[in-house]
């Protein structure tokens, strides 16, 4: 059984595209990163999986349960963090968390207290008085306090300071060690590279690549940095060019011998060839598909 599986999943808002023919697979027990810029359809995918919006076509299941036929049952097993968490004004953090637990028919007070302490969240505060980051923490605790099997997190780290981000990811790692699956969307590529096992790249409503983060970053692409070079080698397969006073840097995909021959015609002091980071890979796929 897969944690999330979609086949040709499609959502149109009237005529406007949300997602189109999306085939996505998230295995149980992995941390999966869903990458794409704003408007690519990340939130649409998540909201369709959770039944907030109705699909226009295709099929999808979460933890083996059809998203329409078994919606109530699957929501029991899911913890969801929206990208912009909003709660009932006038309620205290503790009341919001208790309300959420009650809607699940559970008593999660101990876990809520433990999570709040780790994230530095004051449960006695009113939610309407909280900063963006603290509201996010309320959302995180609400998504985690019932210990679901699957976490669906829409841009979870926006608004959190770096220390809390680290604590948040270590919580996710702990839950994954207990067998849970994490599906998170982000446009912060470094955190996908650091924390995710696999990732999917979404572009204009379609999934253009889905693979392990290792493979995504090891597809024969190299970042080439030339110290002291004033021009680029004359060769195909060059993108994401950065020309500075100290030299040139670019992404290269193609045969290595061809690159070396082309470089031999240039003047430069030093050369480094490195594996690209996730950001480079992302740009690589984005520009390639866009052509």
């Amino acid at each position, binding site marked *: 059984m897969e944690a999330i599986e979609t086949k040709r999943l499609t959502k149109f808002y009237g005529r406007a595209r949300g997602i189109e023919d999306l085939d996505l697979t998230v295995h149980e027990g992995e941390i999966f990163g869903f990458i794409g810029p704003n408007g690519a359809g990340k939130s649409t995918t998540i909201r369709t999986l959770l039944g907030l919006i*109705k699909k226009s076509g295709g099929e999808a299941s979460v933890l083996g349960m059809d998203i329409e036929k078994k919606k109530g049952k699957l*929501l*029991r097993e899911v913890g*969801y963090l929206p990208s912009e968490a*909003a709660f009932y*004004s006038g309620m205290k953090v503790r009341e919001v968390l208790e309300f*959420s637990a009650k*809607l699940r028919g559970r008593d999660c007070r101990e876990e809520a207290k433990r999570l709040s302490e780790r994230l530095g969240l004051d449960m006695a505060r009113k939610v309407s008085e909280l900063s963006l980051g603290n509201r996010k923490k309320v959302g995180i605790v609400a998504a985690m306090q019932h210990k679901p099997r699957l976490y669906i997190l829409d841009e979870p780290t926006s608004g959190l300071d770096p220390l809390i981000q680290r604590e948040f990811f270590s919580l996710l790692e702990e839950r994954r060690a207990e067998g849970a699956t994490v599906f998170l969307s982000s446009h912060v590529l470094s955190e996908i590279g650091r924390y995710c096992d696999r990732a999917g790249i979404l572009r204009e409503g379609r999934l253009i690549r889905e693979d392990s983060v290792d493979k995504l970053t090891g597809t024969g692409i190299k970042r080439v940095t030339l110290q002291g070079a004033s021009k680029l080698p004359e060769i195909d397969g060059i993108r994401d060019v950065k020309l500075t006073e100290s030299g040139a840097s670019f992404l290269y995909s193609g045969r290595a011998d061809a690159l070396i021959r082309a470089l031999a015609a240039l003047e430069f002091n030093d050369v480094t060839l490195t594996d690209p980071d996730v950001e480079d890979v992302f740009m690589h796929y984005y520009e390639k598909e866009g052509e």
Partner: protein
Amino acid sequence: MTIFFHELKRDRVRLIVWAAAIAFMLGISIIIYPQMTSQLEGMGDMFSEMGGFSEAFNMDKINFGEFRGYFAVECGNVLGLGGALFAALIGITALSKEERDRTAEFLLTHPVSRSHVTAQKLLAVMAQVLILNAAVALVAVLATLAIGESIDGKLFFNVFLGYLLMQLEIACVTFGLSAFIRGGGIGIGLGLAFVLYFMNILANLTDSAEFLRYITPFSYADGTAIVSSGAIEVKYLIPGIAYALIGVAAAFIKYERKDIRA
């Protein structure tokens, strides 16, 4: 019943303010009746001769100098219009406020079905209408006893029942509309209540607007009409019940299918 109690708790201040305001105004109107009796006797004749204006408010049909007549008119002014506005306000915001306040995403990603949410919110709306009317009726009875007037049990019951049914109808219809909008809507709700109120006035004024009585719930919940005939007009009540049922059905059907936007 988690959502039901959550709704009552969220709306408690609004309910208390509206119930207190309506009960206070109706109570005061009743308390000042003895001081007004002498003036009212003359006014009763005057109203009977004023034609159109009196007809608009059904004041030609009753003896304004009697307490029951005075009570019916005041009830119509205070509980009739005030209760209708309250019912429209809570009905139109019941479902739409979740999207307006962006809490729909939080609520609906819990393992509760949309129809369950709709049902509990509808119950909460009806409970609030009931509580408001019970509080207002209690104050009215106490005020009546305080000025030494006798209580005509059947009449009081029919008058309050009429207004209660009218408010429930308005609440159900606006509740149905609430499923179609994404916030705001207060203008639509209050506007609808006023339009229905004026429809009844128009129907009182001219026979050619008689058909409006089958549209507005103020036709069967008209205190003065109930005082003069002694009962609620069933032929106006039946379409009212139908409108309420349509409103409720529309809410369930629409909310089940609605896309919740971010």
